[in-house]
């Protein structure tokens, strides 16, 4: 797709999203949407490293968690302005991503999964052990919120937070799409598809891999920081397997290497999970079953479901 058309479509889509608070006035529905935006940022950034880069970074949720805790710690102990802390948390996640890239530079496939998974667990262990600062298993509470002088972000049914979350998603999406459409993005995909050839054409594996992971970390960290400011608490649950499974299924169900697919799947899954709130403990079971079912029947993810349905509709409408 030509970039002007794509940019126009993105703007239209976000304009529709920006209009949503006027349609859904109640605070809880907006909360669901805000969570969907946060998950969309995390999932679409994971798509950069996983889908485009082909790097199975299983520590992606740890980068999110680092954002959460970095924001909490910076605002609590350094007393830095929350907005600056938001950006600094993104920087902290980026730095962590660069550190974790070093041991995986020479590795491939499953070995990267193992090391990054171990990295995530290590970060969690460190946070748990430093309970004087992080609250350990109790987590952090009463984290500094974001503020705009004269405006209460939480008032009017989370009106303010809705737009902050949407702005983060928009910025992150533009950043990701510009990156993957650029020459750097092309070289990242080249390394994924044919490493030997790409290297022989002068692409640096080391540099591109560091760029891929660092770029995927920045907005993930910011999303984490926003999550902390919005929820006002932090716990090590963000490092757990269940959240990682949900977000990873957003990436895979949406279809990898599209960015938009991950975002769409985040909306679908988050809203779907809300509809199932009545099922209580059965919710994770149903979600897991659905993930398996979609992976079994539609290898291309929800995009495959979409094609299937539209084909059915077309076939029906052709019949007299």
């Amino acid at each position, binding site marked *: 797709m030509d970039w002007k058309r794509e940019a126009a479509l993105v703007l239209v889509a976000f304009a529709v999203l920006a209009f949503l608070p006027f349609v859904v006035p109640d605070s809880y529905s907006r909360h669901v949407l805000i969570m969907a935006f946060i998950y969309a940022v995390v999932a679409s950034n994971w798509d950069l490293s*996983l889908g485009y880069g082909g790097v*199975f970074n299983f520590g992606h949720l740890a980068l999110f968690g680092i954002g959460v805790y970095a924001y909490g710690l910076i605002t609590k102990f350094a007393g830095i302005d929350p907005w600056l802390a938001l950006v600094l948390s993104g920087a902290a996640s980026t730095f962590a991503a660069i550190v974790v890239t*070093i*041991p*995986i530079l*020479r*590795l*491939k*496939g*499953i*070995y990267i*999964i*193992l*090391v990054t*998974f*171990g*990295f995530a*667990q*290590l970060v969690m*262990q*460190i946070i748990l*052990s430093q309970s004087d600062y992080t609250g350990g298993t109790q987590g952090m509470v009463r984290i500094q919120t974001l503020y705009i002088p004269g405006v209460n972000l939480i008032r009017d049914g989370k009106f303010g937070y809705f737009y902050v979350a949407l702005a983060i998603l928009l910025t992150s999406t533009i950043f990701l799409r510009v990156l993957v459409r650029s020459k750097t993005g092309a070289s990242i995909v080249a390394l994924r598809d044919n490493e030997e050839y790409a290297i022989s054409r002068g692409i640096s594996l080391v540099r591109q891999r560091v760029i891929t992971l660092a770029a995927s970390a920045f907005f993930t960290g910011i999303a984490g920081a926003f999550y902390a400011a919005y929820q006002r608490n932090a716990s090590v649950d963000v490092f757990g*397997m*269940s959240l*990682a*499974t949900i977000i*990873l*299924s957003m990436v*895979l169900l949406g279809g990898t290497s599209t960015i938009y697919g991950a975002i769409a799947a985040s909306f679908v899954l988050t809203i779907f999970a809300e509809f199932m709130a009545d099922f209580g*403990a*059965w919710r*994770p*079971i149903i*979600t*897991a*079953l659905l*993930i*398996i079912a979609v*992976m*079994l029947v539609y*290898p291309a993810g929800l995009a495959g479901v979409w094609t299937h349905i539209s084909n059915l509709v077309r076939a029906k409408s052709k019949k007299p």
Partner: protein
Amino acid sequence: MMDAASQILFGGLFQGSLYAMMAVGLALIWTTIGVFNFSHGVMMMLGAYIAWQLNAWSIPYFIVLPLAMIIMAGAGWLLQASVVRPMIGRPNIVLVVVITTLAAASLIENGALEIWGPRSKQLPTLIAGNTEIFGIGVSLHQIAIIVITPIILLALWLFLNRTRLGLALRAVAQNEDASLLVGLNVTALYGLAFAIAAALAALAGIFMGGYRFMSPVMGADPLLKALIVVVFGGLSNISGPIFAAYLIGFFEAICSYYFGLYWTPALLFAVLILMLMVRPEGLFGSRARGLA
């Protein structure tokens, strides 16, 4: 001094045996099918809970043990048939199987929570009682683990190296197409690998349930330990991870004796990263299978 040596020796043997038991099933699946089973941890949990349930029905414990392993072997076969076999042949199979086994893990974990509830349970010990060896008090349950594990591992090794079925499994691991050509039933062998792995996971779970409390989330930590062990040992054959398990057991025993439990995970991870930078294929791995 004598005390330190026996503490380290015992701790190393005990942890090493546990780690070997946890990791060997994971390694078996990887070497045969080339996928990673992220439900391996919850299979340990499920095995322990099934043993607990059988025990609660007042079945004698020496029957519970093999019975739980057989039931879990069936569960392993089922897992393979439902979430792994359909994916074979897809280009991104490694990733897809990661997500389906993760989803299966979530399914089993929450299922166990529904059936057995969140309250912690404990299994009876394999052998009740305590004893004193070289001046340190140890439980007979731990001694039993130290003794049983090498026997099971040796049996597995003999099975894989000395029986036709075991050799067929290894043949599939080495070259799937050629195995098909010589008439091996590759799908059945995949099922067998998962069944054996699940039975071994059940045993690991029963070991754990006998000395600490069980809960539906008890599988997460041993899964991580198993992952570390297989990365350390390399995945080119089954004995690499076994050696690595004991090595890590002793490393942890030494670390926690001299530096305390608090620093042990960090030190272990630092060593792991260093090792991966020098020998990405693992300590006992060969470069034959590649790193993909």
